[in-house]
């Protein structure tokens, strides 16, 4: 759906739904439906993309849509302003808001770059008193904001913070003590410093409505008594993910109260257990007959893994990315998980472990292999093309892969996508930058070319290894459904980037680092960036001048630069380009140049 200014028309007609037909003027055709019917029909449409399409049909549809939209999805918090949103959509109950560019996950942005949720909450507090859900990704969230949230929305139910930072236990305390109807508190991958654990004890005495509780990534000790009381009172609890401070014996007690769980994140899995304790824990796991998702398992060794065997029959998602399993114990565990669709592991399982995946998981759709020790370059262990091949042979339904390895070959990749042509997400990270095909010593162009050519449904691609412009030529030529492309240490010239900009019609997000693409490449996309969510380029050959030019030509784009120096000829270290109807942001910190 091409982006159009109408999407966020700041001044929609003031009409209420029932008057919309009059605003069309004498020559406009009458709507075949009364507005009530139109609104009723539209209320069944959930997807924000569909709703955007609906709003473009005609003015009365635009109005009916805006009055009936209850869920707001904002993929880039700076693409629009809270005021514009509030004016267009009067009845919002649920908001998804995303902030920083993805590379901020890897410490490529200073902490105070922006994406502070506060200004949004101030507006929401005024305009959406019935707000129930807030899901934030890569936003900066202070305790003050959480307190405002807690006090402004009496019916608030669900808070989800993914990859956020800026808050402490005090903010959570405010949420749990004020939100009487809270059903979901989901904190994932958040960067938090010294975090007091007493927030959990701030749940009111008889609190019983929680359905989802995830505090796995918060590194604080919580009061176990309060946690146990909470779990035993919340009979509808279906998702519980605790942090490492909860040991096995304590987990057992929690499971006694919550055998109905569908998703469990265990705490620390390494403890000296008596045989009796062992049996009790084993039984507690076996009682969890509804488990579909399992994660955590910190420090689990082969000694204690068998404890979970009884809970694995119905597992569809097994997340072992927090534990360093060896191939033997991993294979044994897999034998108990016949229904796996999604599997996350660390590369300590090695190729041998992945061979076990290939032979025991025929239903597998998603595989993510994380490096146990990404910076240890002495290490020659981990997984290679052998493991990936083995999985592709046995798991023909595989369509999502994230694979960190230290060596790869074109031949292997070609075979892999021949075995699994249905990839929608292919993210291959050969960890040494510019690593060639280790058999031919040549670039990995043909491998990734095969991915682009064979996987016609490909939506997301991350490339790595030694790559020339040819890779990009392939991508531009074949990857017609590509929406997200991540590039690092690749390409030979501006042509590389140009191939992609010219060739991929559905491209929405392009993130590039350490590539020899300069101003010519950047400017060649001038007609494209408004159809995309964003472009990121860091440590490339773009200069301040190029960014300034782009910004001047395209007022509908925000061009932001972080750079050591500010003169025209100096390198633009980090460039972030995104479409916006809100104009250049006013909260940019001093080190961000906004044109």
């Amino acid at each position, binding site marked *: 759906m091409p982006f159009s200014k109408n999407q966020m028309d700041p001044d929609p007609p003031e009409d209420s739904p029932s008057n919309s037909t009059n605003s069309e003027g004498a020559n406009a055709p009458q709507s075949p439906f009364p507005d009530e019917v139109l609104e009723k029909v539209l209320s069944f449409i959930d997807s924000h993309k569909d709703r955007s399409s609906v709003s473009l049909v005609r003015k009365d549809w635009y109005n009916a849509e805006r009055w009936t939209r209850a869920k707001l999805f904002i993929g880039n918090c700076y693409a629009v302003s809270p005021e514009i949103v509030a004016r267009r959509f009067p009845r919002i109950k649920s908001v998804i808001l995303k902030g920083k560019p993805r590379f901020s996950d*890897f410490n490529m942005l*200073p902490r105070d770059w922006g994406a502070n949720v506060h200004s949004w909450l101030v507006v929401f507090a005024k305009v959406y008193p019935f707000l129930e859900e807030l899901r934030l990704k890569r936003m900066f969230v202070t305790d003050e904001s959480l307190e405002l949230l807690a006090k402004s929305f009496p019916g608030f139910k669900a808070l989800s913070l993914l990859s956020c930072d800026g808050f402490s236990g005090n903010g959570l305390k405010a949420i749990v003590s004020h939100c009487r109807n809270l059903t979901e508190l989901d904190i994932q*991958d958040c960067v938090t410093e010294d975090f007091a654990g007493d927030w959990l004890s701030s749940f009111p005495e008889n609190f019983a409505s929680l359905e989802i509780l995830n505090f796995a990534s918060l590194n604080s000790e919580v009061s176990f008594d309060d946690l146990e009381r909470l779990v035993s009172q919340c009979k509808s609890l279906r998702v519980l993910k605790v942090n490492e401070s909860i040991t096995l014996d304590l987990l057992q007690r929690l499971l006694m109260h919550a055998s109905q769980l569908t998703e469990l994140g265990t705490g620390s899995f390494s403890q000296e257990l008596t045989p009796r304790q062992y049996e009790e824990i084993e039984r507690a796991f076996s009682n969890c007959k509804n488990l579909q998702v399992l994660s955590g398992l910190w420090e689990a060794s082969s000694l204690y893994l068998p404890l979970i065997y009884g809970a694995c029959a119905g597992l569809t998602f097994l997340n072992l990315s927090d534990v360093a399993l060896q191939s033997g*114990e991993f294979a044994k565990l897999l034998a108990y998980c016949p229904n796996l669709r999604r599997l996350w592991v660390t590369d300590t399982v090695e190729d041998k472990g992945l061979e076990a995946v290939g032979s025991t998981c025929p239903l597998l759709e998603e595989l993510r292999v994380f490096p146990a020790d*990404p910076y240890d370059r002495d290490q020659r262990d981990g997984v290679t093309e052998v493991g990936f091949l083995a999985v592709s042979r046995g798991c023909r339904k595989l369509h999502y892969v994230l694979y960190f390895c230290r060596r790869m070959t074109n031949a292997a990749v070609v075979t892999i996508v021949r075995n699994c042509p249905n990839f929608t997400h292919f993210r291959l990270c050969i960890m040494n930058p510019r690593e060639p095909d280790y058999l031919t010593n040549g670039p990995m162009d043909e491998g990734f070319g095969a991915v682009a050519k064979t996987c016609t449904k490909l939506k997301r691609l991350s490339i790595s290894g030694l790559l020339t412009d040819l890779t990009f030529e392939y991508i531009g030529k074949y990857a017609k459904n590509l929406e997200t492309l*991540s590039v690092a240490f690749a390409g*030979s*010239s501006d042509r590389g980037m140009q191939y992609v900009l010219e060739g991929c019609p559905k491209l929405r997000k392009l993130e590039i680092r350490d590539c020899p693409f300069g101003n010519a490449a950047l400017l060649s996309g001038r007609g494209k960036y408004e159809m995309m969510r964003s472009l990121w380029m860091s440590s490339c050959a773009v200069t301040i001048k190029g960014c300034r030019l782009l910004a001047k030509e395209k007022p509908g784009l925000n061009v932001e630069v972080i750079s050591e120096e500010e003169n025209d000829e100096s390198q633009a270290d980090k460039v972030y380009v995104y479409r916006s109807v809100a104009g250049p942001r006013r909260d940019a910190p001093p080190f961000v140049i906004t044109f």
Partner: protein
Amino acid sequence: MSVPQEHDYIGLSEENKASDKILSSEIETKNVLNLKETELRLGLPGSESPERKSGNGVSLFWKDEGNNGFSQSPLKNFVSGAKRDFSDAIKGSGKWALSINGGSEGDLEKNDGLFSPRGYKGNNTLPEKEIPPVKPVEEKKIESGNNTPANKAQVVGWPPIRSFRKNTLATNSPKNSDVTAKSGSRCLYVKVSMDGAPYLRKIDLKTYRSYMELSSALEKMFSCFTIGQYGEGFAGKERLSESHIMDLLHGSEYVLTYEDKDGDWMLVGDVPWEMFTDSCKRLRIMKGSDAIGLAPRTMQKCKSQK
């Protein structure tokens, strides 16, 4: 300072004469590339490798005074003494050369030339001057931005792993082999590195029952070194007093340190043996003068341990 002749034992000096071609576009064989880029890092794990100066080939010794200024003589001994031992291994695949240098890839990224502005096929589409070097200032951001142990020099944000995830497994327990019995016996393989050594060793801590046994085993393994002095300090004692440690530090060339569960580098010998094996993730034989700063801190840590 001219490059000492010791380089030849690795068999690399011939290739390295063409050191100006380090950043060349032709990647003839992976072997050659790797050998060219290899430099032994002899500093503390936390030190940043200096920018590679053009004209350097393989050098065993840092020319850059920024490094901890150890003398060359013990290393010379090591080099010549060990010549016979591992020269065979060296003659094998060039890939070995990569493993010498924990930081070689890190160095590669920081250098402008590795941008490969000249295409792989030799198309020189971008003059090198347009590409400024990736600035070392990015390294500093590593410290402020994330929690990885400072002892890994690396490219910022690469590999693309989220910060919180980096921590969980970097300090994870060392590899355990598969266990069948429930008796709790495990193998505790830990890596042992030594300043100046071109490769690491792995030992099973469970096969030793005391610091003395460990010390003498390491002494045999890295036989050129004078760990003996340190090992003698353990005779009849499980623990050492702080002053005793300081005596040893001032006396010996090398000191045995270990990385514990929290990622901190500690002096070996402070805690009871069992506590040590429980928390030790890897060992490092450090140059004595570098380890002085460790002693007071380890005493504090010992007090705070459960």
